[in-house]
């Protein structure tokens, strides 16, 4: 019997194509729209109903079952609640990471399994792999395998599990290009479509440890948001588009007549854009005016609406008239004071060491030398990690406290932690 996959469908092109690919590869696919948030905010209509209709329209087109699962209460408690409490402490949390940890790869996963799912799937740009020897041996000697297409020539596979680390991105790209050619020659489709049947193998290898791998499209990689998802959920997760480039995903959607091929991507938090965060917070957190001081001179330059609304490094939204822009370099939440500076090189903004808390280790970190991502889509920076603190060779622009630092070994996401 065909394996059953419950795929989270947001109405966007990525999860739509994910569902399409699963269906084409013979899985019994069930689409689920997770209703996490539906409230309109001042000046912003929540598009959940439109998104739901988009998701359902695709599900109907694919001829798959479709459900709406209401997680609004849980989302409010687990994600919004966490977010607000962190902001109140003066931190800048990342709700998407929490949403993946608590909702998509926990509640959704659990409910799907209960409903008979063998696997879950999402439209994230990420891949999975497994490593049967990871826990006992070092990565160097491990039998690491990746979610690459089985059609891949053996030489490429060898390249991927190369012993020298970190794995260079170019070789991964090359791998995908070569498989593209292979599939094109076989004439099945003009678009490189990865297979992801290794999940079945993974299941059979009871002792194997799942790996979270960066997507082939380096520009879209979403492992930054996924580093805290549980091992159990990951072992039963398929990321159908993780081996594809975004333009290929769009092209496929277009070729298959999915109406949302050109739908604008939802950015940032599920329900508020970057710009909307302050307005969103104002719905929940009282405005409390305070001073804006220049950090060098301690001079009061102006007033703000509450220190919690501002993020380190932020440039906009300061009611200060000046020839050069000021940047937030420090927040004193207790005294409700924001410190700013015109100096972009101010020592508060640049650090060589970043300490982490709530560290989540996916796979044993064998080497002190790791790669670190400090923001979604930011470049990978080499660093040393002693299990608590990241040490960089050069100073790095310090992300706000509450944000995550995610640690990689080559393309394997090893885990990460919350920046203190």
């Amino acid at each position, binding site marked *: 019997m065909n394996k059953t996959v419950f795929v989270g469908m947001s109405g966007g092109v990525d999860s739509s194509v994910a569902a399409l690919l699963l269906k084409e590869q013979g899985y019994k696919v069930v689409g689920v729209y997770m209703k996490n948030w539906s409230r309109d905010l001042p000046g912003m209509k929540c598009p959940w*109903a439109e998104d739901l209709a988009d998701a359902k329209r695709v599900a*109907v087109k694919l001829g798959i079952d479709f459900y709406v699962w209401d997680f609004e209460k849980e989302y409010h408690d687990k994600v919004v609640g966490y977010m607000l409490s962190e902001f109140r402490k003066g931190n800048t949390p990342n709700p998407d990471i929490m949403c993946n940890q608590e909702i998509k790869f926990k509640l959704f996963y659990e409910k799907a399994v209960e409903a008979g799912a063998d696997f879950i799937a999402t439209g994230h740009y990420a891949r999975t792999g497994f490593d049967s020897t990871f826990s006992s041996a070092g990565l160097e000697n491990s039998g690491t395998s990746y979610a690459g297409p089985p059609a891949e020539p053996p030489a490429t596979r060898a390249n991927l599990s190369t012993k020298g680390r970190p794995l260079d991105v170019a070789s991964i790209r090359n791998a995908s290009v070569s498989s593209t050619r292979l599939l094109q020659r076989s004439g099945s489709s003009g678009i490189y479509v990865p297979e992801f049947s290794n999940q079945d193998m993974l299941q059979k290898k009871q002792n194997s440890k799942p790996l979270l791998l960066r997507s082939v499209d380096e520009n879209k990689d979403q492992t930054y948001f996924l580093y805290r998802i549980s091992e159990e959920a990951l072992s039963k997760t398929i990321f159908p588009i993780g081996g594809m480039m975004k333009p290929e995903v769009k092209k496929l959607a277009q070729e298959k007549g999915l109406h949302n091929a050109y739908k604008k991507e939802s950015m940032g938090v599920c329900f508020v854009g970057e710009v909307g965060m302050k307005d969103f917070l104002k719905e929940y957190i009282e405005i409390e005016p305070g001073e804006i001081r220049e950090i060098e001179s301690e001079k009061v330059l102006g007033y703000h609406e509450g220190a919690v609304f501002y993020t380190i490094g932020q440039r906009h939204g300061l009611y200060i008239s000046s020839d050069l822009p000021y940047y937030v370099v420090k927040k004193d939440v207790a005294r409700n004071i924001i410190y700013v500076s015109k100096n972009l090189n101010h020592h508060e903004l640049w650090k060589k060491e970043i300490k982490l808390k709530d560290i989540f280790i996916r796979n044993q970190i064998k080497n002190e030398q790791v790669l670190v991502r400090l923001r979604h889509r930011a470049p990978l920076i080499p660093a040393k990690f002693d299990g608590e603190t990241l040490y960089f060779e050069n100073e790095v622009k310090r992300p706000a406290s509450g944000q995550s630092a995610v640690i990689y070994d080559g393309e394997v996401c090893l885990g990460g932690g919350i920046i203190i």
Partner: protein
Amino acid sequence: MDMIYLDHAAATPVDKRVLGAMEPYFTEEFFNPSSPYLPAKKVASDYESAKAVIAHAIGAKASDLVITAGATEANNLAFTAISIVDGSCRRLLPRSALAGDPLRRHHPPTILYLETEHDSVRRVAEALGGEAIKVLPNGVIDLKDLKAKITDETEMISVALVNNELGTIQPMAEIAEIIREVKLDRMKRGIKTQLLLHSDASQALNLLEINVARMGIDLMTLNSAKIYGPKGVGALYVSHDVRLRPLTVGGGQENGLRSGTENVTGVIGFAKAVELAKEHLNGNRKKYASFRKILLDELQGYELVNKKHVLDNFVVLCYNGIDAERLIFLLEEKGVYVATGAACAASKGVRSHVLRAIGLTESQIAGSLRISLGETNTEEQMHEVAKIINEVVSAERGRINE
């Protein structure tokens, strides 16, 4: 692929003749009717004539109409007629003010509304502490329930002439008769409280003969968008002895009840649409009756939801065990556009309160498809669409049983 549009209860295309009538008022006769010079006065006079055409269609005068930006606004305005006594002031209290208002908690409901009303009536009535009147399983008002719920405090009863999801026609004359008796009784006992009948006739203007006086209606909502006129134009008929409170204050247009420069083009278009509707009233009813028959004869495997007392252009089908929303998307691929219920409710993913009120189960509600016929339809289309729907339904049943 030619489209087959079966959602005229949601929107109608503007008739070309309507558009033609409106055109000069966009670019040439654009003057503000309140301006003092002659060309503006001509526009003012055209505007009044247009209002008269609309008013005559329901047996009223131009001065009885308040032009609004659609039926929702007209419905909202109608409810300003009720007085919540607060000192000597008659005023409509906003919901927020009412929430903690002792008046609301201790005041018996002054509004009765049919439970199948459109949200633009239901939400306002609910916010003002109104009480719902039940409908019978056929969608018609339960007159016994109405009688039982009228108290000495009841000031207003709101019943749509035609329901927007089922097409059910309500017996306004019988309702008016009950109201007359209550008023007579109140007079005998020296009770001065007003008792008004409001009716939302948005769906009815092009298919029913309407006369407000004969129907005993004090307030009536009209809508241009449903009768091949422009969207964003509506009207509230207000009988002489009803006092309203404006929701929009400003230059004092529309007898001070709806300020804002007159929507001249909209009203000209509305009037033309009314004129055309009245011309074709009887022909249309025959046409839709025959269309409905073709559909009911040729469609398969459905239960008819709206059997009796309905406008013939409404055909509500229940395909039990099927998710009608899926049918919408499947039909959309074939150029057939239908709905499940009121467009505004459907877009929020809310299950129809109307279908629930007539006693349908959740599964029946989920399987219900609303077809509303109109001017864009032909007899040929009816045969064709019956075939398409049959195919789509059987394919979907096949998928489910796979």
